[in-house]
């Protein structure tokens, strides 16, 4: 195999400038574009509000508001990539959120005893299971009975929203387990300063390891390598951004009354100027990070993910290649349901209960996030990080518009325009490229 490198000569043609940089680093240009758009929105609102929008407390609130939508959007990517749609996600969130509330107020205290330390675990497991079951039933009807997903999940949207009312007899239910409430974020629902730095450094080590592993694998097989400077540049930017975000999260301190109460409760003397407790990364954001990594892994590193993309690219070819297409489709809906269950946990934890309209309209935000993130309705194209970024772009815009005092109808108009612009720009680019 000594002659292998010669058989794959480096591309001789150079284009110079940004494109050259993009080619050397093999950065996804559309993901890069979205990061730029996100920065423009954040900085734009920062300037428009005289910097108030950029305060750590706001950025953290923004990210927590994004969490519920972003988590579902990662699953929606796989559903849309395989040429299906799930309109029922908001209603699944509603049903599972109501289930959490009922479980923790009515059912589990009777079984486990009030204030049982494992109550939140049991409730969460049951909720994820309920979500997965609902997704599985819809997925079965879609994949094995052959009813179009649009119809099945449209029916699901109506049925499940009705079920929320039936479950709670039309009333809101409040009062969740205190540990469960941490999932909702806020100063107490965050992992704290030291843990945040640990997570940040862990992610940096992960980035370095992944890039080094890829390079080693490619060298082992004698494939063309990225230039060393490009590898270092990517690693550097990745780590800098990660640590920068941790720094922002840690600049968000516990509000003084909360910190003082904490100090009193733990017998800590309050220093001059108040006790400084760094909030750090909120739990919902931890959930988003974990879901993004796990879902990206499933989508790109597992056979299941490959099958989903193959089905989206050419359903007949996937079937002929021996892929069990029906079971694969059903699994995407089960996964979707489980993610809705997680999202419902965050939404209900933030409310400390469930109202009748938790999750209403989520389907639209989730689909918009996936599509802004580059998922194509033609099937076969889409990325998980893109969808998460798409959710962030949407939410930072909506949050910014409400921050500068625009009413919610105006926010909707802006969100709709951004959606159409983003997809229109994308279609234009793809047509030009092909």
């Amino acid at each position, binding site marked *: 195999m000594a002659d292998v490198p010669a*058989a*794959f000569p480096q591309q001789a043609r150079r284009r110079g400038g940004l494109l050259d940089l993009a080619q050397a680093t093999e950065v996804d240009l559309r993901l890069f574009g979205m990061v730029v758009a996100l920065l423009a929105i954040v900085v734009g609102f920062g300037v428009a509000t005289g910097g108030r929008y950029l305060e750590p407390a706001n950025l953290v609130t923004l990210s927590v508001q994004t969490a519920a939508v972003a988590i579902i959007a990662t699953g929606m990517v796989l559903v849309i990539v395989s040429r299906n749609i799930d309109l029922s996600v908001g209603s699944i969130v509603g049903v599972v959120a109501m289930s959490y509330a009922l479980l923790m107020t009515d059912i589990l205290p009777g079984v486990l005893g009030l204030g049982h330390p494992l109550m939140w675990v049991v409730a969460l497991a049951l909720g994820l299971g309920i979500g997965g079951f609902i997704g599985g039933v819809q997925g079965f009807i879609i994949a094995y009975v052959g009813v179009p997903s649009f119809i099945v999940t449209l029916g699901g949207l109506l049925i499940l929203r009705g079920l929320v009312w039936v479950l709670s007899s039309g009333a809101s239910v409040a009062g969740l387990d205190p540990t469960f409430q941490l999932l909702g974020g806020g100063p107490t629902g965050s992992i704290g300063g030291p843990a945040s730095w640990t997570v940040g450094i862990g992610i940096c080590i992960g980035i370095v390891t992944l890039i080094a592993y890829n390079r080693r*694998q*490619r060298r*082992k*097989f004698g*494939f063309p390598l990225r230039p060393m400077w490009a590898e270092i540049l990517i690693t550097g930017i990745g780590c800098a951004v990660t640590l920068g975000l941790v720094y922002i999260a840690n600049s968000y301190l516990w509000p003084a009354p909360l910190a003082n109460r904490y100090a009193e409760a733990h017998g800590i003397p309050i220093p001059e100027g108040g006790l400084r407790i760094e909030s750090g990364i909120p739990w919902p954001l931890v959930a988003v990070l974990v879901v993004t990594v796990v879902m990206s*892994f499933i989508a*790109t*590193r*597992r*056979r299941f993910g*490959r*099958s989903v*993309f*193959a089905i*989206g*690219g*050419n359903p*007949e*070819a*996937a*079937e*002929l*290649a*021996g*892929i*069990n297409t029906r079971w694969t489709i059903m699994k995407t809906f089960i996964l979707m349901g489980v993610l809705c269950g997680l999202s419902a946990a965050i939404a209900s934890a933030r409310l400390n209960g469930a109202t009748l309209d938790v999750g209403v309209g989520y389907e639209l935000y989730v689909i918009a996030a996936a599509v802004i993130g580059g998922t194509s309705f033609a099937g*076969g*194209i889409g990325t998980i990080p893109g969808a998460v970024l798409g959710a962030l772009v949407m939410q930072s815009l909506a949050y910014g518009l409400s921050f500068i005092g625009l009413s919610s109808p105006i926010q909707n108009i802006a969100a709709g325009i951004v959606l159409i612009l983003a997809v229109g720009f994308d279609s234009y680019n793809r047509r030009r490229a*092909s």
Partner: protein
Amino acid sequence: MTAEAAPAQQAANRVPLVEMRNIRVAYGGVHAVDDVSIDLHPGEVVGVVGGNGAGKSTLMRALSGAHRADSGEILIDGEACEISNPRDAKVHGIETIYQTLALADNIDAPGNMFLGRELTTRWGTLDDSAMEGATRKVMGRLNPNFKRFATPVKSLSGGQRQSVAIARAVHFNARILIMDEPTAALGPAETEQVRDLIRQLKNEGIGIFLVSHDIHDVFDLSERIAVMYHGKIVDIVNRADVTTDAVLGMIILGKKPDEVTREELAELHA
């Protein structure tokens, strides 16, 4: 016994690699394949010819698992087996190169080659490097000019896409290969490459069903030729025993040469 008849005689004495017996496939009341029996021996190429709608592709789809036969038996190595989906076929060493190529356009060449049979690392993750390595190896043999291993196959040329589809069949050590119009989308040089490949695979002992419109392809490569007409087999002949005209006559008229009337023959030549 003549010299030409000897190989066929020998073949008949061995257990066939594939035997399809009394296969029927109906699409909404129309018998696309009507009571067809055909067999294939190791190292043999059987050409399957016929006009549009004669049932060639449907017959092959029954063997590749793409479409389940309504009735009939399929024997592999003399043993009856159930082929109800493409996975079953692959288990029996049946690989198919479809006329449509059956590629996922959004996935790169290695991904397509291993579609449904991805190599995984010991952690159960996709082993992209190993798959790319194997693809480079097979491509080095099939199409040494092929270099675009990381681009979605959508942006490849017709010939390159064809070589990906062929590579997929070759890599998995097929014992039985079904090639449906393998040269339809190719230029002259690439067609010659595919022909060489077919001869090479034949010498390795693989049995090949070659479905083609191109009577010359079939005559150059096949030991036997099965002519289909309106879902039925007109005749299965030894290539050495027939002329292209005789086969063309069977394709067009759906009758064996000795059954053709003078009037029909005159019309054919007119």
